[in-house]
């Protein structure tokens, strides 16, 4: 594709817009979190700043900026200042490869993908940036020169490394089905006319569960928010941080939530695909259809942000050894099983000449096989508990 000046300008505007939308969504996620928390706990929630309290994020921002910006005397000053900013940077970088919409017709035969960059290694890029995100917490915690911060940082690092493995294995199953690492191609293969029935969620139920659990762990959200576990570590890795440097850490968490929601929508829920998009395209033209697609992706991503909040106010926190056990002895073996079973679900319909829905039946039967296997394994290994009877 030749890069014309129109395309360049349009792309620049698009990237600026995505940047602004991501920041805006992150700011209003803080408001959303309070509203959801209030709703779950039967309280009123923020209602003072503006109608329904919708200016609450602005008030929070003013509060954050006005607070004293404190740097501990014996901290590593440069690292202490640099890493909240880098944490923010890595959180924002991921959205470059998420396809937010289909092609937009700019007139004059120029078409623009509503995606930052369409690279052949799109999903690996997401992984690379996620693995960079560990450093923000790890180094920030160390630079504070505080034992609690250091413990929080170490927890964050080991947790992220452990859950990255299971996350990678659950993505391998998706790659087996689409045959490409490009996020654009992953969305397009889910768009083959059967409406939402061709989304990956139907053929990857186990993979999606693994992925969402790992996304919770990677974003350090409850029930896996052990790096900032107040009861044990005061504030965890951001104990020493105040003012807007703390704000950056909190903000990057919300950006990560939104972006991981968008990635989950892209991988498992058809990205910008929505039911009857051919009808919309035939009726109102390509541009309207693409913009509705952007709305569809945003809706899916925001739903996942809501799920993140929902879980936060529903489940209590794990203990640290439980977290590590779940990651290494639970999710990684299950995701390996998922990779093998996905191979079966691709091979069985092609070798026996069955229709396409057979692969979906095979992949859902995988859940049954997994459960039976787990029950047999559990029965064989767990010791019989002796019940003390009263005489």
């Amino acid at each position, binding site marked *: 594709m030749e890069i014309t000046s129109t395309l360049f300008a349009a792309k620049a505007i698009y990237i600026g817009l995505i940047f602004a939308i991501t920041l805006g969504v992150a700011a209003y996620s803080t408001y959303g979190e309070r509203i959801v928390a209030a709703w779950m706990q039967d309280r009123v929630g923020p209602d003072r700043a503006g109608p329904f309290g919708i200016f609450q994020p602005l008030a929070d921002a003013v509060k954050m900026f006005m607070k004293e910006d404190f740097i501990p005397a*014996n901290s*590593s000053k440069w690292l202490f200042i640099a890493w909240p900013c880098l944490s923010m940077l890595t959180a924002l970088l991921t959205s470059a490869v998420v396809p937010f919409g289909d092609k937009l017709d700019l007139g004059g035969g120029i078409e623009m993908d509503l995606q930052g960059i369409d690279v*052949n*290694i799109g999903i690996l890029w997401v*992984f*690379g940036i996620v*693995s*960079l995100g560990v450093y923000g917490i*790890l180094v920030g915690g160390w630079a504070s020169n505080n034992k609690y911060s250091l413990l929080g940082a170490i927890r964050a690092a080991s947790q992220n*490394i452990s859950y990255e493995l299971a996350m990678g294995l659950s993505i391998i199953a998706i790659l087996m089905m689409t045959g490409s690492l490009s996020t654009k191609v992953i969305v397009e293969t889910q768009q083959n006319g059967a409406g939402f029935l061709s989304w990956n969620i139907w053929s990857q139920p186990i993979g999606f569960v693994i992925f969402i659990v790992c996304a919770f762990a990677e974003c350090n959200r409850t029930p896996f928010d052990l790096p900032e576990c107040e009861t044990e570590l005061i504030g965890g890795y951001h104990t020493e941080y105040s003012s807007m440097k703390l704000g950056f850490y909190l903000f990057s968490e919300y950006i990560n939530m939104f972006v991981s929601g968008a990635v989950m929508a892209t991988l498992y829920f058809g990205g910008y695909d929505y039911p009857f998009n051919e009808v919309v395209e035939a009726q109102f033209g390509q541009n309207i259809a693409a913009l509705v697609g952007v709305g569809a992706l945003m809706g899916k991503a925001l739903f996942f942000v809501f799920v993140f909040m929902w879980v936060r106010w529903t489940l209590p926190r794990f203990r640290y050894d439980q977290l590590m056990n779940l990651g290494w002895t639970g999710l990684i073996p299950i995701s390996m099983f998922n990779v093998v079973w996905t191979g079966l679900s691709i091979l069985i319909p092609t070798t026996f000449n069955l229709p396409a829905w057979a692969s979906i039946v095979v992949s859902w039967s995988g859940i049954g096989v997994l459960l039976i296997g787990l029950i047999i394994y559990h029965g064989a290994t767990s010791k019989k508990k002796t019940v003390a009877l009263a005489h």
Partner: protein
Amino acid sequence: MIQLVFIAFALLSVVSALVVLLTNNVLYAAFSLLVTFLGMAGLYVIVGADFLGVAQILVYIGGILVLLIFGVMLTNQKGTKSQGRNDILTENTNRVIGLVVAAGMFGLLYFVFSKGHFAEVQASLFTDTPLKATTQTIGLQLMTDFVLPFEVSGVLLMAALLGAAYLSTKQK
């Protein structure tokens, strides 16, 4: 334009590698290594090896260097504890010898690569292929022409994994 980008990434790698060599703060050395790896990933992307660039970020920055920094952070800090700082400083700073060794390595590698005539060797062996995505080519090659080395390295890694698991279990 592409030359400027290349020079930027090359300078990034070289300067941060020099910092690794010359600083006596172990943690700063580790972070400079992070920048060196990033610069190398950029250089890989410039020569068209996009998969190699991302693999560099995933494996070296996301895996190996995190463990390295992990180890450094948990290192016992004796020297500077009394002043309340948590910098980890090395006691030996053999900067001159370090520079000599680095220059020697550079000279050796430069000699080998310049004698190699890679461009001429490759020109007679392979037909020109248009520049395209490398992921599919790498995957196909690994599963067809290079399947034996691929499987052997898999067995080797498995053995290393089992060894690590055995060493870390409690003795019964």
